[in-house]
């Protein structure tokens, strides 16, 4: 089964018409397929369109053209509230800066996606406790994020990302703010989640991290740079 399927995905910033010279073409026709249970690393230098692709895959932004199907649902052309529902239901985000709500307890942070999904209070609590135990933080339930170390915060963020059993885990430089040891622990956790059958897309600029993934997709100047093209470039 296919989780991500994009066809000729285009994203253009600025520019009033199609051939406007001022327009920035961040994505210029991406065809990307990710199968269920895959772990894919999305790599590329800064300015390659990595972040833009990640935003569109995460339904945080809408493409200018092309089609995107996520877990069987047509995404392009949907309005804000529908995109929010898809984000809530199908995507778990892990950010470089953790992005935990500083005034909410760890438990509440993990409960939040379930709150938006309308899960009952009791089930929310049960699932959040279960998830926190799974990422190795069963005893930090009622503390604020500020009291945790970076690695711990990222674990909480991962627990939160898993809250609604998403079809896709989308991680944007998840180890970027961590030292190499805790970074490795977080990566191990991702490996574990992958082994349990989760679909993971890892955005990174670090080739060592990308090497952990079973498939690497490289982005250059808004286009996928696969093996074939690499050969052509070499020739």
């Amino acid at each position: 089964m296919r989780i991500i399927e994009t066809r000729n995905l285009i994203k253009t910033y600025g520019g009033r018409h199609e051939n406007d010279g001022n327009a920035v073409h961040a994505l210029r026709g991406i065809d990307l397929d990710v199968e269920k249970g895959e772990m894919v690393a999305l790599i590329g230098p800064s300015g390659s369109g990595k972040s833009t692709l990640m935003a569109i895959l995460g339904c945080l932004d809408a493409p200018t053209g092309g089609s995107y199907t996520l877990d069987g649902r047509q995404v392009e052309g949907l309005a804000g509230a529908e995109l929010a529902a898809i984000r809530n239901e199908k995507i778990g985000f892990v950010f470089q800066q953790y992005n935990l709500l500083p005034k909410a307890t760890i438990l509440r942070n993990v409960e939040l996606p379930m709150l938006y999904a309308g899960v009952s209070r009791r089930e929310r609590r049960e699932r959040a406790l279960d998830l926190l135990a799974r990422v190795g933080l069963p005893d930090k339930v009622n503390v604020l994020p500020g009291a945790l170390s970076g690695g711990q915060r990222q674990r909480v963020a991962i627990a939160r990302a898993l809250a609604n059993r998403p079809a896709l885990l989308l991680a944007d430089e998840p180890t970027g703010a961590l030292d190499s040891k805790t970074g490795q622990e977080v990566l191990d956790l991702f490996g574990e989640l992958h082994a349990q059958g989760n679909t993971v897309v890892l955005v990174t600029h670090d080739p060592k991290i990308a090497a952990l993934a079973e498939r690497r997709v490289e982005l250059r100047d808004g286009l996928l740079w696969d093996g074939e093209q690499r050969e052509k470039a070499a020739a």
Partner: protein
Amino acid sequence: MKPRGRSGAFLERLHEAWIELRENPGRSVLQALGVMLGVASVLGGFSISDSQRQQTERLFARLGGVDKLNVLPTDTVYDGKPGALQSANRGLTLQDATEGEELGREKAVNATSVQKDARARVRSEFADREHAVTGVGADFVALNGYEIEQGRGFSSHDLATGAPVAVLGVQAASVFFPTDPPEAIVGKPLRIGDVPVTVIGVFRERSFRFREDQENIMAWRNRIVAVPSGLVAARMTGDPYHRVDRVTFRIPDLAAMTDFSRELSSLVTGNHRLQSDFRLDDVAKRMEKRMSQGAVYNLIFMLSGILALLGGGMVNVNVQLASLKERVREVGVKMALGAPGSEIFKSFMTEALLLTLLGSVVGFALGILYAWGITRIIGVPLSLAPLSFLWAILLAAVFGFLFALYPALKASRQSPMEALRYE
């Protein structure tokens, strides 16, 4: 998954809003300041003007109620010589009173009072003075708010026959019988003009002060020397026409007042050869006029409250927008986790609602304190009406809601991606 338990979602938002307010006390107080001042101003102002009005109502109640229509004689000739009809007129007479009562029987007139004034030499064992004497008829005592303290009042027999009896106000009693205790005055003789009368009773002391430090504006009523009006007409002024100085009708049904006063006016005009030598004094209307001044004050207080709410609302918007910058990222995170714009909007509105409620509670306390202070200074008892509270919180709610809209909309319409990238 469908959202379940709407009230549960509201409680969650309320809880979150409470945490937000608690964690930012400075900002919250600043935001609530406008609500506090507005509510305090409206509630305090309304209560002050309410207290004043209550005091006015009390005054009119003490004067014998507002449901009264007075008929008073006036001068017919202001300038020049009187015409033949004018000189032939005898002014307001007992006939006007009895016919008026007859007329008003269907119009719910339930009491009529007649007053005939005279000045006479009044003598007791202790004093001998020129003094005002009030000839009273029918329901005068009740209609003017007098009560008997000692002895008895006039019987219908006394009034019908013009019996030589008198009832004194407390001050008159102490003038003519300075050494006697009130109960001993009853039965004492008094001479009014050439007529010997017996004191049969003493009125209860009348007292009313608008403010505590002001003089008793009813003191003159304690000086009354009341005798039956028939006695004055027959034996003091010797008036065969039974002219009177004031006729008062009581009409508990104020709606019937307008009709009755019009008909009465045409009746009396007819009796007086079509000369308008009298005037009607509608006490209810007089009080209404006094009250309408209160309404103007209420409007002013409400306006100043609205101004405070407006100013506060603008501060609120500013603070909200400034704080929004700190919270953009938080909003972005919530959106990324699947909160739709409507959820963000609701959470901001819930915060505003909570803030308005808390601000209103503080505003109530401030308003009561303010009204209490002012009414103490002017010496009027404080009266708090539920309606004032309602107005205050209603205005606060409306302004709280209106001024929360813009920041909440702005927050909810952010693009999640830009919000997440915001540093």
